[in-house]
């Protein structure tokens, strides 16, 4: 992974779950990691929900107080520009859709100054997600996110799943979709995620745990 990884995608495409997995993997390998909860449009299912898990793994969390106030006013109460120059890895979990990526545009000039070989911006897709089922739809949204964030993606992550109903076949069926999105976007496919307990044989598979789920799912 590069020093900075920015993660974008459709609402509920699995950005937060991927961010948590990436952060834990780096931290458990002894790396210094900061996760930025940059979802300032939605107070539900956020990286900030994993504060205690992060603390247990020595991961730093930067999150605004939005979800803990009664004001529907998004605000960024941390200095991401400074964080970008600090030691260690930075994972930025962006809000859903173009609406969630607007705030990122404010940092575009700062990130543009950054070495391109040290910054990735990954677009997370889910073949089973309504409105991004067709590769064209996924690409349209990707373009909208790039417009508002004033930044360009560098890779595609295929995170196709059907929640708790996901089987190995669910993942395999969506492999061509990820490849098509990657080809049409002229961007490399970073990998295809699959839940660790499913035995899926993929050459660029990314095994993940499911952390983002409702309280009644154990």
């Amino acid at each position, binding site marked *: 992974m590069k020093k900075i990884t920015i993660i974008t995608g459709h609402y*509920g495409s699995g950005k937060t779950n991927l961010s948590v997995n990436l952060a834990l993997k780096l931290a458990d390998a002894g790396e210094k990691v900061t996760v930025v909860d940059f979802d300032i449009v*939605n*107070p539900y*299912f956020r990286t900030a929900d994993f504060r205690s898990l992060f603390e247990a793994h020595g991961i730093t969390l930067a999150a605004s107080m939005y*979800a803990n106030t*009664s004001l529907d006013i998004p605000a960024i109460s941390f200095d991401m520009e400074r964080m970008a120059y600090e030691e260690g890895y930075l994972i930025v979990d962006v809000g859903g*859709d173009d609406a969630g990526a607007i705030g990122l545009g404010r940092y575009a000039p700062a990130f543009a100054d950054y070495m391109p070989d040290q910054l990735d911006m990954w677009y997370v897709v889910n073949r089973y997600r*309504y409105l991004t089922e067709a590769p064209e739809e996924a690409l349209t949204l990707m373009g909208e996110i790039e417009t508002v964030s004033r930044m360009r993606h560098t890779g595609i992550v295929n995170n196709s799943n059907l929640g708790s109903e996901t089987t190995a076949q669910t993942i395999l069926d969506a492999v061509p979709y990820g490849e098509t999105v990657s080809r049409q976007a002229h961007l490399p496919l970073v990998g295809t995620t699959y839940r660790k307990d499913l035995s899926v044989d993929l050459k660029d598979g990314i095994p993940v745990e499911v952390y983002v789920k*409702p*309280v009644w799912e154990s």
Partner: protein
Amino acid sequence: MKGNEALAEAAIRAGCKCFFGYPITPQTELSAYMAKRMEKSGGVFLQAESEIAAINMVLGAASTGVRAMTSSSSPGVSLKAEGISYMAGSDLPAVIINVQRGGPGLGSIQPAQSDYYQATHAMGHGDFHILVYAPCSVQEMVDVVMLAFDKADQYRIPVMILADGLLGQMMEPVTFPEPRTELPDKSDWAACGHGGKREHHVINSLYLDAPLLEAKVQERFKRYAVIEETETDAELYCCGDAEIVVTAYGASARVAKSAVTAARRKGIQAGLFRPKTLWPFPKKELCEATKHAKQILDVEMSMGQMVDDVRLATECRLPVAFFGRTGGVIPTPEEVLAEIEKLAGGAE
């Protein structure tokens, strides 16, 4: 699919042609989805200047016979109360969605179930009821939206879907039914233009003649009696031999179901009663579910509102305990299980 988006897509497939709303967390994705998709499906999306304006636009659209909807979250629904009463008084069908958050006042933006009283007992001034559905999964939200439009038209009443922030925000797989192509004919009452060929239709809730208003209200209550008789619905889970029946709706029913399953594993004869309609409250179904019960545990994301209907429905024959979290705090299966174990221990 995300709960809020599923509600919106289902409405479009149910033949909803007019959506009027005003954004509020945690239901905003619903409006955002409508903004993107409604026009493409040949309908109208309009972000009103306020919740009050939105509900009155729904009133106007419904008067012409088209399927119309609005959605909001708790504080916004309070603002719509006047319009809902006017629609009930004008015999207008419409669907209103409340993705509940913590209250009172601006409250919080996390999920809650503290608008139960409002939805089922006091959704505005005057003598009236609205049908209230309480889905507990993203799939059920889809199914219930289709049903809500049909029932609204059938009985000419406003219908509410009482969801909560958790259901609105969560992702679950869904299957959509085919879009409705044939919708009910409303030409015998709708104000949709008469072309000089018939008497004009009047949509109105003002009756200055008291006996006339009384007759109108009494006629409406005859319809309500039919609804109470035929439209109740509930899910019974492990209730056959249950000695402790947990009552819960919506997201807290999902939590309660996990707790009941865990209690069964520990040998406790627990069951879950989940009303799918909150008004009318499924009394017959609750009596069936509690046939062998010695105790009831009501679980809500509130300080206890539905618990009163549970007591009334069982005519206080059984002791009813209550466990609730409020303000946006979600109860955990472990907490509910602990309450069940407490009751089981006490019963022995």
